[in-house]
């Protein structure tokens, strides 16, 4: 098991984890009206470019120009690393980047002037290590929307195998025209703020964010990441399995001997597409978690893709630390067939474990188990 020593979120709700958590507690959302590339009104959760650049320049004092996703990534990592009090240049510190599309916006700008390699995710990861003068080769995880969980699992293995003493895991993705156009073509966007698990849900909102967790070895205090697993549905490349096959297996492998009664809540993927939310409910029920409180954070942040697994884990384990279950924003009318306990109010819980789930294109599913030590 490993321990989050420090963590950060850079999102429209703020540039620190406490600010983001407080905003979630107040029921705030970063989802705002915007337009897709065709001019059709949509909503998404968008970072203020000027505020981001300001904060980035103050924190990182850059000597060259950086793209927007790079600024968000470096700002988030830099703030988390400073708080962790570790030596980021040490050979015993590793870096993992989680992103689905990184600098993809550069494809639309033929003369962007950032060089031919700038579009590559390995280059983006290299900027992360360079920022801290770290000589190690960074790892990039790109596994659709579960990337943030997969990156944390990689950090878990790295630390448990003694490869490093600390691992900085950073996720970032932007609501680029590329991604917005793609999801529009899938007709999977809700024109209004999303409603996970609700009968009126129409689809997801895209969000942009960066999030970082600095992990070290667990010391039996505070919060630990115990284990995580990824499993595939083997069903369809973009639609979830009707039986929640992969997610059920990922959860089962992750719960192991724990009883569903030990779980305070599930921080679900809850993208608010008709199929995803139903599939998750089926998987939860198959794993015996049909009475466990469930919430989705997608109405606060939108779907932040490569950042989602990290960002949502942070909010989840902060709630675990506070001893509460968060309400699932956007949910009013039950829209799920079969049993599912969607959390509708902030309640206290003394249970010690939480589960974070994510699912993604390509049929992949992830489940993470966090524990609070007394």
């Amino acid at each position, binding site marked *: 098991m490993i321990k989050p020593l420090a963590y950060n979120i850079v999102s429209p709700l703020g540039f620190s984890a406490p600010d983001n958590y407080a905003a979630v507690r107040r029921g705030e959302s970063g989802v705002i009206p915007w337009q897709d590339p065709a001019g059709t009104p949509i909503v998404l959760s968008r970072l203020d470019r000027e505020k981001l650049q300001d904060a980035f320049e103050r924190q990182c004092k850059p000597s060259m120009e950086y793209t927007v996703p790079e600024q968000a990534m470096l700002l988030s990592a830099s703030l988390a690393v400073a708080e962790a009090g570790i030596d980021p240049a040490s050979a015993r510190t590793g870096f993992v980047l989680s992103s689905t599309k990184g600098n993809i916006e550069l494809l639309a700008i033929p003369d962007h002037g950032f060089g031919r390699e700038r579009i590559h995710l390995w280059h983006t990861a290299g900027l992360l290590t360079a920022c801290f003068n770290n000589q190690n080769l960074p790892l990039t995880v790109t596994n659709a929307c579960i990337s943030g969980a997969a990156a944390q699992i990689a950090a878990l293995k790295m630390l448990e195998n003694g490869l490093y003493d600390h691992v900085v895991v950073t996720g970032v993705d932007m609501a680029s025209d590329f991604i917005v156009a793609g999801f529009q*073509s*899938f*007709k999977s966007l809700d024109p209004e703020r999303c409603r996970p698990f609700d009968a009126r849900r129409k689809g997801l909102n895209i969000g942009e964010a960066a999030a970082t967790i600095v992990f070290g070895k667990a010391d039996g205090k505070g919060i630990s990441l115990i284990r995580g697993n990824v499993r595939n549905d083997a069903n*369809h490349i*973009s*639609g979830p399995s009707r039986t929640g096959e992969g997610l059920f297996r990922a959860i089962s492998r992750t719960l192991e001997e724990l009883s569903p009664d030990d779980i305070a809540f599930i921080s679900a993927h809850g993208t608010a597409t008709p199929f995803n939310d139903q599939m998750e409910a089926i998987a939860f029920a198959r794993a015996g978690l049909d009475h466990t409180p469930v919430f989705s954070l997608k109405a606060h942040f939108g779907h932040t893709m490569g950042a989602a697994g990290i960002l949502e884990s942070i909010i989840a384990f902060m709630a675990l630390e506070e001893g509460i279950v968060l309400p699932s924003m956007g949910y009013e009318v039950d829209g799920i067939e079969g049993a599912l306990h969607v959390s509708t109010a902030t309640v206290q819980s003394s249970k010690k474990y939480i589960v974070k789930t994510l699912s993604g294109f390509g049929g992949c599913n992830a489940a993470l188990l966090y524990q609070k030590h007394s």
Partner: protein
Amino acid sequence: METLIFDLKKQIIEALNLEDITPDDIDTNAPLFVEGLGLDSIDALELIVLMEKKYGIKLEDPGKSKEIFRSVGTMADYITKNRKK
């Protein structure tokens, strides 16, 4: 109508990457989904793009699309009545 049906079959083959299939292989009135060509959800979305790109028809309601895309014949009928290109 004959020309439209033939063109539509060619466009479907191209848009959906249906290898080794010619317009003659597609029965105008056979189901496109589940049986027949066995198209799936992504194919349905591509057909929506095809309608707009080639015929200027915007389909906003996925529910209505099911009826329109039942067969090449139903598609051709709908295009004849609603085309803007």
